[in-house]
């Protein structure tokens, strides 16, 4: 529980966008509601432990570490969560919708699909590096690894998998970038649709 909520939100504000992007990408393949559950749980843990944060300059890595560990436990609970609701022990109001309004592009959908093929640790490592901009040393601490080499090889493996999957998808899609631009936008809830279905929809739209 944070004694000074004002201080907490003040520290959070500059890192808010990165934290949201990281959370959403981390929960790739999950519904926005499920991703918000992870985020809500992360906020609760952060609020409860904010008093124990002695060095406020480490707020960013501290908060991302909380999101990461919450995500790990959510992955473990993901199967059982279908049957049992996540109970924080108190009647906490549901956090406002953050991810539902996020616009889904074709590129984002492909990346989500690719990310969902990675293991939780690989996904977290690549996103901490690419999206949140953490150094390998920082990721080592966030992921509670003993050496940087573990993170380096994890990043390498994650990149290789992503490249492979994305290339396959790029080759598969009948894209016409000159007509639609590189970021052909899809509106609506298309995240859980297959890539094949998207391409069919695009073809129909062009006709």
């Amino acid at each position, binding site marked *: *529980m*944070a004694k000074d*909520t004002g201080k*907490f*939100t003040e520290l*959070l*504000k500059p890192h*808010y*966008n990165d934290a*949201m*992007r990281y959370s*959403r*990408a981390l929960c790739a393949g999950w519904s926005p509601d499920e991703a918000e559950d992870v985020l809500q749980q992360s*906020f*609760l843990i952060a*609020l*409860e432990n904010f008093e124990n944060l002695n060095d406020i300059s480490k707020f960013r890595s501290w908060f991302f570490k909380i999101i990461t560990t919450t995500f790990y436990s959510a992955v473990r609970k993901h199967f059982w969560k279908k049957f049992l609701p996540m109970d924080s*022990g*108190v*009647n*906490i*109001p549901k*956090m*406002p*919708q*953050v991810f539902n*309004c*996020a*616009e889904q*592009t074709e*590129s*984002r959908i*492909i*990346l989500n699909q*690719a990310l969902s093929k990675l293991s939780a640790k690989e996904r977290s490592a690549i996103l901490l590096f*690419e*999206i949140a901009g953490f150094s390998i040393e920082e990721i080592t601490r966030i992921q509670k690894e003993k050496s940087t080499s573990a993170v380096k090889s994890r990043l390498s493996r994650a*990149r290789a998998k*992503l*490249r492979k999957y*994305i*290339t396959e998808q*790029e080759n598969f899609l009948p894209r016409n970038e000159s007509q639609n631009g*590189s*970021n052909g936008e899809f509106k609506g809830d298309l995240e859980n649709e297959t890539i094949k279905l998207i391409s069919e929809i695009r073809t129909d739209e062009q006709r």
Partner: protein
Amino acid sequence: MKQSNLSQKSEQMNKDKILENHFNEVKLEDYSESFPAVENWIYKTNIQLKNKQNENKQNERKLQKMKNFLFANKLRLAYSIVTLAVIIATCNMPVTQTETAGQVITLTVPTNNTDFAAKMSALPWIKNAQVSSNGNTEEGLNQTLYTIILPDATQEQAVNYGKELESLGGITTIKITPLDYDVKRPLYSAALDHFFSIKIDATGMSDQEVEQLVQKHLKKHGIDMKFHFKTGPDGKRDIFIEKTEDDKLKEARNFELNIDDNNGKEKIKIFTKKADPEQLKGKTDEEIRKMVKQEHPELQDKDIKIERNGDKVQVKVEVERNQK
């Protein structure tokens, strides 16, 4: 055909660029619009967490105190365990209690009084008694000794039966003795024996029905105390406890009466004490009040009513409670 190193490198760079483009797009996502709502939620949530933590702290403090006390050193822990064991052992220690199973009337009648046996047999209550007779000679006179065992009879009933027997005439001696027996039971059971609880759901019952039900429960436990219920215009039921003039306590009994009435609950605890009349002899009202208040400090002077009738002194305690 095998690709050249340059071509492979170029392909790799191309793939990296594609991947970078995907990540760059994620980096362009803007969630800042949702920050005020999330900030507001954080404030609200933190208040709730604070309340929860205060509750937890209070519980923890109580537990911590107990932990500190018990686990401060091994000797104290050992003493606590031994004390607990002693308490349990003491509660289960068997104690002997004397209980009255009934009354025995023994009377002697001259043997030549042949009518007595017939007159006695005509008494209605004698059918429930066990009667035995023996011939006896006392001071040169032939006497018949009758032993009448009255199971479950109270001393009061036995005295009344004795009076009826005396009215038949011709009795030389009559004696009433209680039929006692010893019971062994654990200490806790002995302590609870003089205290019992009655639970009544009076919802939808009339005043008379509640009165009858209470009376029935009390009689089952050998208590003759009259309760009177009266429903006021506001729908609230007043409870009056009446003490009859001939109400003599056979033994001290304590009980509680729990009445549920249209979602309202009333708990009455009644303690009765068999007083020694000699104890009150020669005492002034003030001294008697002091005696009563020593045992019940919650009572006020106005609650203790003392009635004097010659040498007889009767002490009544009347407490009026207003229901909130």
